[in-house]
């Protein structure tokens, strides 16, 4: 493979300015993540402590292997939503190792509204299960939840990917041999009762956890029977009388140790043996990415420079380097693993779309995972290109991206606009993981164009009402529309809503990809059967 020769001058003014800008941006994002990771208000933490309970993040640290990574999923969920009352969506999800096995951990945060399920909590829970299922990961549920957040029951209960979907997923995963384990450290009420009940193995903590379909207040209301939680569905009841749970632990620590023991005695599975060599660090410092990403994303940057700072030894074997140059395709190694990389270097032309399709075919046949580095403003438009069949070539690409069975991992490093998002394995195309860089943008079209259209709509509306619209008025409407549109295109807005799996520090992208690649290898790569390519 050839080493990428970087053209970046780290002493240039552009570099220094961009570096400062992006570094600050990363710091802002990290500060928000830090804040969100604290969970609920201090008061809730105090109460929790008084009850002798651990914080959900402490539980995770105790249950995973010492000094091993934890790949958190959706740490920005719920940011700036519901008046910021559901930091992290009230649930912590992520992949950690237990006795060397990668396990999806789903932990309710009882300091956030008693661990109840908001719409975003549901979405995060389902996303975590989906990752587990797609990558053959066992699941560990650290249950401490009061069930659905009643005031929003209409948004959490009835639909396909709502609360009920949890149990369906558990049953299906269990049937595929993916172990479902629950440690109940608090309440599992109503629907919440089924999370442990649907698990293969359940641990409860004495005098702390309880599982019931109807809690004491509901029992009283329905039958007049007065009963306390422990007697109704405590650990003793379920491990000795009902058999709803399997193990009785004297305290949380013991319960978490027991959970580790269960994973220890699980048969080991072999990972898919993707071609691998000794890993090597990139030649160029990944932190230099800060100096490459422009503040204003309408200024293009060369994706080769990014690849050089992500892949092993900065080596890249480029495929079709002279053809359809607005798209960069090629093979490289990350953490020693052979991967295909597709990155954007401008607008998609019919040639670039054909090249992408060809490259995805190569990777699919060879069973090589594909990394998508998205910085895309869309497919080229105009008479010449429509006549050339841009839509047809775009369709081929989308067919290939949709039907390949190799793992896809997407990082949005710049723009993610329009159909480009689809072709470059956006959220709708089931990449195994999708992350965004702090300065990236995601929307159906660019803010300028959108603002023009939206302003026109508004102005026409006012005009229809028979009112006059001054130039100033139009300008102020446009500004307002634009500001709102831009805000809704940010990485933070996206990540809060789980359109992605998190915002990541660009310099750590390589590490995210290394961990993620190994997670995908828990599932064998199947033969690909493509759909029809429109010719």
């Amino acid at each position, binding site marked *: 493979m050839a080493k990428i020769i970087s053209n970046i001058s780290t002493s240039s003014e552009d570099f220094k300015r961009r570096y400062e800008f992006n570094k600050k941006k990363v710091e802002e994002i990290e500060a928000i993540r830090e804040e969100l990771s604290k969970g609920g208000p201090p008061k809730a933490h105090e109460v929790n402590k008084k009850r002798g309970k651990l914080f959900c993040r402490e539980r995770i640290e105790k249950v995973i292997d010492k000094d*091993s990574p934890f*790949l958190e999923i959706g740490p920005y969920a719920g940011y700036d939503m519901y008046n910021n009352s559901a930091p992290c969506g009230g649930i912590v999800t992520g992949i950690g190792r237990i006795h060397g096995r990668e396990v999806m951990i789903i932990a309710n945060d009882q300091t956030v509204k008693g661990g109840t399920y908001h719409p975003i909590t549901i979405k995060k829970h389902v996303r975590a299960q989906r990752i587990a299922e797609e990558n053959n990961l066992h699941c560990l549920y650290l249950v401490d939840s009061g069930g659905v957040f009643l005031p929003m029951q209409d948004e959490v209960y009835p639909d396909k990917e709502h609360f009920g979907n949890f149990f369906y997923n558990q049953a299906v995963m269990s049937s595929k041999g993916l172990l479902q384990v629950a440690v109940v450290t608090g309440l599992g009420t109503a629907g919440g009762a089924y999370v442990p009940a649907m698990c293969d193995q359940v641990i409860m903590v004495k005098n702390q956890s309880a599982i019931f379909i109807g809690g004491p207040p509901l029992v009283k209301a329905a039958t007049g029977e007065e009963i306390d939680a422990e007697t109704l569905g405590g650990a003793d009841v379920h491990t000795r009388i009902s058999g709803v749970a399997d193990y009785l632990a004297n305290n949380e620590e013991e319960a978490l140790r027991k959970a580790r023991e269960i994973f220890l005695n699980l048969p080991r599975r072999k990972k898919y043996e993707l071609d691998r060599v*000794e890993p090597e660090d990139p030649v160029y410092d990944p932190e230099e990415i800060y100096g490459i990403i422009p503040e204003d994303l309408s200024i293009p940057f060369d994706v080769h420079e990014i690849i050089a700072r992500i892949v092993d030894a900065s080596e890249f074997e480029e495929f079709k380097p002279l053809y359809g140059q607005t798209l960069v395709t090629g093979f490289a190694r990350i953490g020693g693993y052979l991967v295909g990389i597709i990155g954007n270097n401008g607008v998609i032309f019919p040639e670039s779309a054909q090249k992408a399709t060809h490259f995805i075919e190569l990777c699919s046949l060879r069973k090589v995972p594909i990394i998508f580095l998205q910085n895309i403003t869309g497919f080229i438009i105009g008479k010449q290109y429509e006549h050339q069949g841009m839509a047809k070539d775009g369709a081929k690409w989308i067919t290939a991206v949709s039907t390949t069975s190799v793992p896809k991992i997407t990082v949005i490093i710049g723009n993610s606009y329009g159909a480009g998002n689809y072709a470059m394995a956006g959220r709708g195309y089931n990449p195994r993981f999708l992350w965004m860089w702090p300065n990236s943008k995601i929307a159906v079209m660019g803010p300028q164009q959108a603002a023009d259209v939206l302003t026109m709509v508004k102005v026409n509306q006012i005009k229809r009402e028979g009112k006059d619209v001054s130039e100033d008025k139009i300008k102020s409407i446009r500004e307002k529309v634009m500001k709102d549109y831009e805000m809704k295109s940010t990485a933070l807005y996206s990540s809060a809503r789980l359109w992605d799996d998190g915002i990541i520090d660009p310099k750590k992208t390589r590490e995210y990809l290394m961990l993620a690649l190994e997670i995908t290898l828990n599932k064998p790569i199947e033969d690909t059967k493509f759909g029809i390519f429109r010719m």
Partner: protein
Amino acid sequence: MKKINKVLVANRGEIAIRVMKTLKLLGVKSVAVYSEADRTSKHLSYANEAYHIGEAEASKSYLNMDKIIDVAKKSGCDAIHPGYGFLAENSIFAKKVQNSGLIWIGPSSECMRSLGDKINSREIAKAAGIPTTPGGTIESIDQAKKLAGELGYPVLIKASAGGGGKGMRIVQDEGELEKAIELARQEAQAAFADPTVYIEKYIVDAHHIEIQFLIDKEGNSLFFPERECSVQRRYQKIIEETPSPTIDRETAIKMGKAAISVSKKAGYEGAGTVEFIYDKTEGKFYFLEVNARIQVEHPVTEEVTGLDLIAYQIYIADGQTISISQESLNNRISGHAIESRIYAEDPDSDFMPSIGKVEHYKEPFGVGMRVDSGFFKGSEVSINYDPLIAKLIVKAPNREMAINRMYEALSSYHIAPIKTTIPLLKRVFKHKKFVEGDYNTKFLDLYKEDLFSQSSSNKYVSEGLALLEFVKQHKSTYLITDEITSLPLCWDMLGKWRG
């Protein structure tokens, strides 16, 4: 031992190890010191205790007199052995050691100071009736011109305080003289902080021959068979042998006696070496200087006499007397010994130091082969210190056999990837002139076309290519399945990673 029970060895590398080996034999405890760069060096494991004394830079560690004395006192040492190089011939250090109540294993500070000055040491030699190379101090350019004219060109300009060839220049005719003196002065000033230089006759067929001697506090003395050290590069020895193929026994004994008389004149006590220049054309020898320390090449003398010179250094420092007579020493002498110095230097790039990690290291072993080394696999050759990796010493019944044994030993001394002087040494031991014993101090220069940048013979190329193929097949860059699983997973590599 009477007074010496624990010794601090103020050195590193092979000589520190060499000294510690003898200390162990004598039942004396040893203390090692080390710099930041030597935290994992080989010499540490040969001592009973080891102490960190400072940064990698020698001036902040191995040359830090007060620190070393402090460590010696604190660790309960009775004596300090300086090895060679670093502080070995520093009379101020010797003084400090003596003043601190410790025993200095070497001649007295006063003796070292008087011998350390080259002009002064020549005066001592003259007073003892030993010829010195004709020449004298330079007072003025005119005087120097006159003197050089009397001596006849070529002449040699030397730094008074120097050694190791620094400040040394050959002048072919009067036209070059003034400039050469000026440059020699500058170099001398830079290297030794003393610009004094002197002039002497330059001997064309010159041999470097030296006499090892021992003198105890009662004046008992021994001189050893001569060592010929004429294979030199930039005035630094790379091969030493004993006995010399150049001089006869009679001359050797004359030189031995001369060595003793000059050393006694200087009040020498301990082990030392007197260096002579031997003019083969005229059959005359001249006093050059006294090395007031144990020398790098002492092992060849040990090999032909079976005596441990380091042990004698310690006995004498301990106040004991030499119990062996000159006659019985003469009777012990047998066979021929040669030493090769293995430097981490590329002989084909003007002896440029070759810095880096010794990734492959295999020492020769067998009858009559001795390796005094300071390295093992994984050791780092650092820019901070002398690049001597090891000394390879062989002994055999006669010179021819010793040369063959040396060639054999060099061939099985494998060091990579750093460059060493081994290939050059091998060529020397195969060189007709060397084998015939017909060489002088200009040997390397004279035969540089035979000795440098030679591609080796290609007898085993096919075998080499088969090995290459074998190695490639048995460990390809693209790992075979078993090896994929033996690589650590990324999840193992990242530790407590939290994104």
